[in-house]
């Protein structure tokens, strides 16, 4: 009976869709993806203009979405962990300050925060011609953030040196862990790692022939009142506003996850660790954090997913993400509502599934290995 009902409902919808599309003279199909798109996108990571295909436009939107999500996730994680730990601080002022931050940003709709940063806060920035240089090289103006571009020579050698450093660090960590498990010796892994990742690329500069120069943005006058910076990398204000509000908003939730995770570790664990002579830092690193991570990771994964999905609010401030470029402009031009909306939704579904698979894998890795 349920089967029949489901089939009937789907049949009804499909039939209607066919009739409607016939009436409007639209044919169903994904062929439009290879057609020329003939619209421009303000900000894109890959080369794109109107002569490229709709599929290319889709890629531009997708990459922009991923870019803002990754920036947001990184900042939100750092901020969230700091605030989460601060909420557990014995220091009354720090504690209350962190609590205030969490309660304040958590209870205001994200869209409102995005609008606030984009339309109110960032609009108060100076015009390009009035902007003062930050450290002499970067300019924060109403038209975006201009930072110097890196110009590399022999970039591949530099890249290999970094890869070598990372491999060395992994090997050293592995050895250090083994040493600790067998002989109980502690090695300063962090210091060695930092040293390696600094020294190896430095060597590549000294003897590998790697050269790095900066292309500092320069003010250029287009008309009597119109100025613009040329050269360097420019980050549009949409990206800044979006990344800022996404990370400030999500950090509050991550902070709560971190706090819950650390509070979930019994007091006895900390006292036991302290009583066998571990220093407070060692207690945090070797006893509390490994256990707390197990509690922290699943809800934090949800927050990462939320952040990625919330990045679609970009459409509200015209940051060219997937929704704006593809479900907005491309849909207006082609009128292929069913195809485009389904592709967009499918993309977000895949992104969500990819993130949750990765985090599940990581979660399994650190979960308790039952014997």
């Amino acid at each position: 009976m349920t089967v029949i009902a489901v089939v009937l409902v789907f049949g009804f919808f499909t039939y209607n869709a066919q009739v409607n599309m016939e009436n409007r003279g639209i044919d169903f199909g994904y062929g439009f993806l290879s057609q020329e798109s003939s619209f421009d996108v303000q900000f894109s990571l890959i080369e794109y203009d109107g002569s490229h295909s709709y599929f290319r436009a889709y890629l531009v939107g997708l990459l922009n979405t991923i870019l803002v999500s990754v920036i947001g996730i990184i900042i939100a994680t750092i901020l969230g962990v700091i605030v989460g730990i601060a909420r557990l601080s014995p220091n009354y002022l720090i504690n209350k300050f962190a609590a205030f931050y969490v309660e304040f940003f958590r209870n205001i709709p994200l869209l409102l925060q995005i609008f606030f940063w984009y339309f109110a806060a960032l609009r108060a920035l100076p015009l390009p011609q009035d902007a003062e240089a930050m450290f002499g090289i970067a300019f924060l103006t109403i038209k975006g953030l201009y930072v110097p571009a890196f110009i590399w020579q022999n970039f591949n050698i530099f890249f290999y040196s970094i890869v070598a450093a990372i491999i060395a660090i992994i090997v050293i960590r592995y050895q250090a862990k083994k040493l600790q498990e067998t002989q109980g010796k502690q090695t300063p892994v962090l210091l060695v790692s930092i040293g390696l990742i600094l020294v190896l690329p430095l060597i590549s500069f000294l003897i590998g022939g790697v050269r790095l120069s900066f292309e500092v943005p320069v003010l250029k006058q287009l008309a009597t009142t119109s100025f613009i910076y040329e050269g360097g990398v420019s980050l549009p204000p949409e990206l800044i506003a979006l990344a800022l509000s996404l990370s400030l908003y999500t950090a509050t939730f991550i902070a709560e996850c971190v706090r819950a995770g650390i509070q979930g570790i019994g007091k006895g664990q900390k006292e036991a660790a302290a009583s066998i002579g571990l220093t407070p830092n060692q207690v945090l690193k070797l006893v509390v954090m490994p256990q707390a991570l197990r509690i922290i990771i699943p809800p934090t994964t949800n927050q990462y997913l939320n952040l990625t999905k919330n990045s679609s609010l970009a459409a509200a401030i015209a940051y060219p993400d997937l929704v704006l470029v593809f479900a907005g402009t491309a849909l207006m031009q082609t009128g292929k509502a069913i195809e485009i909306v389904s592709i967009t939704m499918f993309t977000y579904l895949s992104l969500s599934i990819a993130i949750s698979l990765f985090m599940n894998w990581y979660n399994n890795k650190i979960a308790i290995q039952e014997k």
Partner: protein
Amino acid sequence: MSKINFFKPDKSNLNIFLYLGSFLFFVSFLDVLLNSFFSVNLTGFLPSFLSYFFPLIVGFIGLYFIRIELSGIKQLDLLNKHINTNNFNAILSLLIIFIILKSIPPILSWFFIDASFAGDSKDVCSGTGACWTYIKVWMRRFMYGMYPNGEQWRINLSFIALALLGSVGYFATDKFKKYLTLYYVVIYPFIAFLFIFFFISGGPVFFDFSYGIIAAILSIIIGFFIPSKFKFYYFLIVPFALYVLLKYFIFYEELIELGKLDGLNWVETGAWGGLSLTFIISFFCLIFCFPIGMAFALGRRSGFPLIRYISIGFIEFWRGVPLITVLFMSAVMFPMFLPADFFIDKLVRCIIAISLFEAAYVAEVIRGGLQALPRGQYEAAKSLGMGYWRMHIFVILPQALKLVIPGIANTFLALVKDTPLIFVVGLLEIVGMLNLAKTNPEWLGFAMEGYVFAAIIFWIICYAMSKYSYNLEQKYKTDR
């Protein structure tokens, strides 16, 4: 008096350290205070770099001096314990104190001292402070959207009536307490529905929905004669079938004439807006998403594979996509799947979309509660001879829902915070109205005031909701 070692404050020279330390701390405090409130720089004679860090350094030394363990003075010990445990904490405490001191004057002056409240035109807003006149002038638009000014009493009256009807639970005597659940789950939403659609909307829409009411009553009456085995499927299908039958085949023309009563003017939903629209959408989505979510939570734990997979598919699909694409779908894709002459109002489509979306989240929360119950509860209920529905309604769900009050409250909060997204389909609630108002050529440049105003309103609503859910959680907490 013993020899004083300034690098190691101890109890033997308590008074000296105490006076010296508090003096230094007070100096640093005073310096920042004067600097921020009266813009007087006490240390102007120093190089600018030193002058900048002067309060921090002096305050730090001061805090270092008064950090004496077990001094015997209660307040000092408390102070040390709370803000002055070690050097790092001392610096952080100082920084926070200075930030607060520094930020009070600009905030105060922007909000109150330099702000303009009077008047009703842009001219009064020439100061550096906020222009609350702008909010005052646009207040009606922010609250009611494009709803005609003369008709706004209808919204007020409806909300007041609904609030009064909603508070019935507090005054109910014990005799009527057992009907409260029925009242809140079935009757109250129904009344709310009638109020919103017949009173706020007005006009001939009335009789369009009267078909629905007739269909519901008819199907309930017939339902009494249906064997209980098929009742579930019966109620799944027959009411909708009856509605369509009534609407399209039986006395359509006759009733549409009756519907054109000379009553309230019809206000199309496109004109609704502002904070009242936020309330309307949140209210209906809250009401609808809860039962749908509950159904899918039960479906996900159902014994029938088909129902289970449909539920899993439903939940995972909605949880995987952003709300904005769901609204896009409801706006551009959904009409394609309906018969050409079948028109569903934009607002209704929005409410359906948000309800389905949030229902998936509610379903996962409730599933958590269902899973948290020990098996013994299910087995005990079954051994008493209870069927599936009886077991769930009387034993499982009351306990499971109690467990997940915080989770459900979080979902509802997320729902309220998601309502501004309806700008996608062109409905303007308060944030949308703000965006409209700030592009008005007569009132350019007051975006900040508008967003701060809306942020305060949303903050109050959300904070109140989270506090209420906390109280509810405490109230229904039972030790198990």
